[in-house]
C-alpha cells in the first residue's frame, strides 16, 4: 500500500476549490478564468501523474476520508480500472483548454463550471462508495448542462434542458438502485456491498432489482439506445470546445462506472450466476452498436454523425463489461480511453474546420484538405483510427472486445462489431473521400456568407491544430502499446 493515497482526495479538491477563483476574480478582472483553469489543471495533472506512477510501482491506492475506516466512512480508490480514466480526465481537461483559449467561450463563469466538471469527473472515477458516486454524478451533470448551454442561443438552452430532464431521471433511477442495495445490506461501500451480496445470494430479489436500476440509470447517462436521444442534440448544440470535452469524458466516465459497478460491487460471480440478465445487458449493448452505426451513416451534419457514432461505441464498451472476461474488460478499458481521445479530438478538429471555412455538413467537406492540410490530416487520421484501421487504438479495442465475446460465447457480438466496423468505414470514407478527392466548390468567404462561423471572430491557432494532430498520433501509437499497458494495469486484481 502506497503513501500517496491522499493525492486522490487532493486531485478532487483542487479543481473544485479553484472553481471559486474565476468568480472572485470576476469582481476585478475579465477573462482570467482561462488562466486560473490552466494553472490549477496543470498542477492537478502533475499530482495525478505522481499518483498514477505510485499505482504502477506499488499497486492500488486507497484513501479513507476523515480517517474513518470503511465501510463506515467513504474511501477513494485508484486501481487498474480507474487509473487510466483518471489520467485521461486530467490530460483531456488540460488539453481542451488549448482549444478554448481562442475559440471560447471565455467568460469567467464558464471556467468555473469547467473546473467543477473536472472535479466531478475525478470524483466519479475515484470514489469507492455508491452514494458518494451519486453526488459526484450530479456535480458532473450540473456542470455539463451549464456548459452545453454556454453557447447562449435558444437551441443550446433547450438541448441542455432536455439533457438535464433525461439525465436527472437516469440519476434518480440509479439512486433507486442504490436504495434497494442499501435496504438489502445497510451499507454503501462498494467492496462491503460485494461481500454482503455474496452472503445474501446472487438470486435475491433486492440484489437483482438494485442491479437493474443502477445499470438502467447509468445507461441513460451513457446514452445507450434507446435512451440516447438527448445526446446528439446536446453535442450538436454545444460549442465545439464543450462538445469535445463532454464527448470525451462525460459518457466515458458513466460507462466506466458501469464497469466499476459490475466488477467491484456485483462481481463476475454475480454475472456468471445470472446468465439471463448478463446476456440481456450484452445484447442491449450490441443493439446500441447497430443502431448507433446505422443512424450515424444517415447523418449529414458532422457533429450529429460523431454523436451517433458514440452511441455505437459505448454500446460496445457496455457489452464488453457485461461479458466480463479478462479480454473483454481490457478491450472495454482500452476502448474507453481510445474513444475519448479520438472522439474528443474529432470534435475539436471539426470545430477548426467549421471556424475556418464554415464546414458543418458532409457536403461542406469537399476538398477541404487543400485549404487546411494539417487539420484535415489530423481529422482524417482520427476518423480512420475510430473505424479501427490497424494498428490504431480503435482496432485494438475492438479486437479485444471481439476476442472476449468469442471466448464468452457471444458470437453475435463479434459479428455485430465487425458489421458496425463496415458501417463506420462507410461514413468515415464518405468524409475522407470528400476531404481529399473532392473539388472545393466554394471559397471560404462564400461559406461564411452561408451562415458559417466567420474566420475573423473565431481565430484558429497553431496550438489548436497541433492538439488535433497530437491526439491523432497518440491514437495511432496507443494501439501497439496495448500489451504493455495491459501488463501495467493488473486488471486481474480488480476482477477478483
Amino acid at each position, binding site marked *: 500500500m502506497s503513501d500517496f493515497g491522499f493525492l486522490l482526495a487532493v486531485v478532487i479538491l483542487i479543481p473544485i476549490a479553484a472553481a471559486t477563483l474565476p468568480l472572485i476574480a470576476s469582481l476585478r478582472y475579465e477573462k482570467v478564468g482561462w488562466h486560473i483553469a490552466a494553472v490549477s489543471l496543470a498542477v492537478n495533472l502533475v499530482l495525478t501523474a505522481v499518483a498514477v506512477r505510485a499505482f504502477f510501482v506499488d499497486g492500488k491506492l486507497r484513501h479513507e476520508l476523515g480517517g474513518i475506516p470503511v465501510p463506515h466512512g467513504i474511501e477513494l480508490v485508484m486501481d487498474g480500472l480507474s487509473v487510466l480514466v483518471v489520467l485521461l480526465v486530467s490530460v483531456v481537461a488540460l488539453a481542451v483548454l488549448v482549444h478554448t483559449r481562442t475559440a471560447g467561450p471565455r467568460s469567467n463563469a464558464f471556467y468555473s463550471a469547467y473546473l467543477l466538471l473536472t472535479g466531478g469527473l475525478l470524483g466519479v472515477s475515484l470514489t469507492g462508495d455508491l452514494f458518494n458516486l451519486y453526488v459526484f454524478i450530479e456535480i458532473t451533470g450540473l456542470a455539463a448542462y451549464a456548459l452545453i448551454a454556454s453557447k447562449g442561443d435558444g437551441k443550446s438552452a433547450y438541448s441542455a434542458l432536455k439533457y438535464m*430532464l433525461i439525465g436527472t431521471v437516469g440519476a434518480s433511477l440509479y439512486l433507486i438502485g442504490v436504495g434497494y442495495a442499501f435496504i438489502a445490506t445497510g451499507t454503501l461501500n462498494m467492496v462491503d456491498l460485494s461481500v454482503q451480496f455474496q452472503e445474501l445470494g446472487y438470486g435475491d430479489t433486492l440484489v437483482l432489482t438494485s442491479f437493474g436500476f443502477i445499470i438502467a440509470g447509468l445507461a441513460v447517462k451513457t446514452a445507450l439506445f434507446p435512451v440516447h436521444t438527448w445526446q446528439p442534440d446536446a453535442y450538436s448544440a454545444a460549442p465545439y470546445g464543450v462538445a469535445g470535452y463532454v464527448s470525451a469524458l462525460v459518457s466515458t466516465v458513466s460507462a466506466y462506472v458501469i464497469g466499476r459497478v459490475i466488477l467491484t460491487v456485483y462481481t463476475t460471480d454475480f454475472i456468471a450466476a445470472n446468465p439471463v440478465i448478463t446476456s440481456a445487458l450484452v445484447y442491449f449493448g450490441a443493439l446500441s452498436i447497430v443502431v448507433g452505426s446505422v443512424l450515424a451513416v444517415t447523418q449529414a451534419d458532422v457533429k450529429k454523425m460523431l454523436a451517433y457514432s458514440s452511441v455505437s461505441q459505448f454500446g460496445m464498451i457496455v457489452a464488453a463489461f457485461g461479458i466480463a472476461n479478462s479480454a473483454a474488460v481490457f478491450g472495454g478499458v482500452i476502448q474507453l480511453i481510445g474513444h475519448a481521445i479520438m472522439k474528443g479530438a474529432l470534435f475539436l478538429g471539426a470545430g477548426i474546420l467549421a471556424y475556418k471555412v464554415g464546414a458543418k455538413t458532409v457536403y461542406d467537406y469537399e476538398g477541404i484538405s487543400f485549404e487546411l492540410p494539417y487539420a484535415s490530416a489530423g481529422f482524417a487520421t482520427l476518423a480512420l483510427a475510430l473505424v479501427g484501421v490497424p494498428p490504431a487504438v480503435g482496432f485494438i479495442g475492438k479486437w479485444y472486445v471481439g476476442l472476449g465475446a468469442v471466448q464468452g460465447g457471444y458470437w453475435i457480438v463479434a459479428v455485430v462489431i465487425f458489421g458496425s466496423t463496415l458501417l463506420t468505414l462507410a461514413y468515415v470514407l464518405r468524409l475522407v473521400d470528400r476531404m481529399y478527392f473532392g473539388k472545393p466548390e466554394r471559397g471560404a468567404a462564400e461559406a461564411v456568407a452561408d451562415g458559417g462561423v466567420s474566420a475573423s471572430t473565431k481565430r484558429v491557432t497553431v496550438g489548436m491544430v497541433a492538439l488535433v494532430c497530437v491526439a491523432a498520433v497518440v491514437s495511432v501509437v496507443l494501439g501497439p502499446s496495448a500489451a504493455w499497458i495491459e501488463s501495467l494495469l493488473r486488471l486481474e486484481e480488480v476482477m477478483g
Partner: protein
Amino acid sequence: MSAMEIVAPALVDVFVARYYHVTFMVLVAVGLYILIDSKNLVKKVIGLNIFQMSVFLFFITAAYQDGAGPALIEEGGGPYANPLPHVLILTAIVVGVSLTSLALALVVRVYEEYGTVHEDRVEEVMADE
C-alpha cells in the same frame, strides 16, 4: 376454499404492511407521468421534482424501525432511526433544488429566445430556423 381466496388476502397484507414502499412506487409513477405527459417545461420540472422526492420516501422508510426516535443519542436511549439515510436524503434534497434552479434558468432562457415554454412550439420554431 380455492387457492385464490387464501392467497389474495395474504397478498393484500403484504402490500398493506409496506404502505410507504407502495406510496413511493405510486409517486415515482406519477412523477414520471408528469415528466412525459406535460408539454409545459415548468411543469416538466415539477414532475421531475416529484419523481426525485418520491425516492426520498424510499430511503427514509428504510431508516425507520418500530418505536424508534430521531437519532439524537442519549445515555441508555434507543432504538434510533438510522441516521445514514437521513444524511443521504439531506444531500439529495439539496441536489434536487440545485438541479431545479438550473433547469428553471434554462426555461427562462428558452422563453426569452422562443417566446413560449410549450415543448411542441419550441420545437416547431427550432425546426424553422
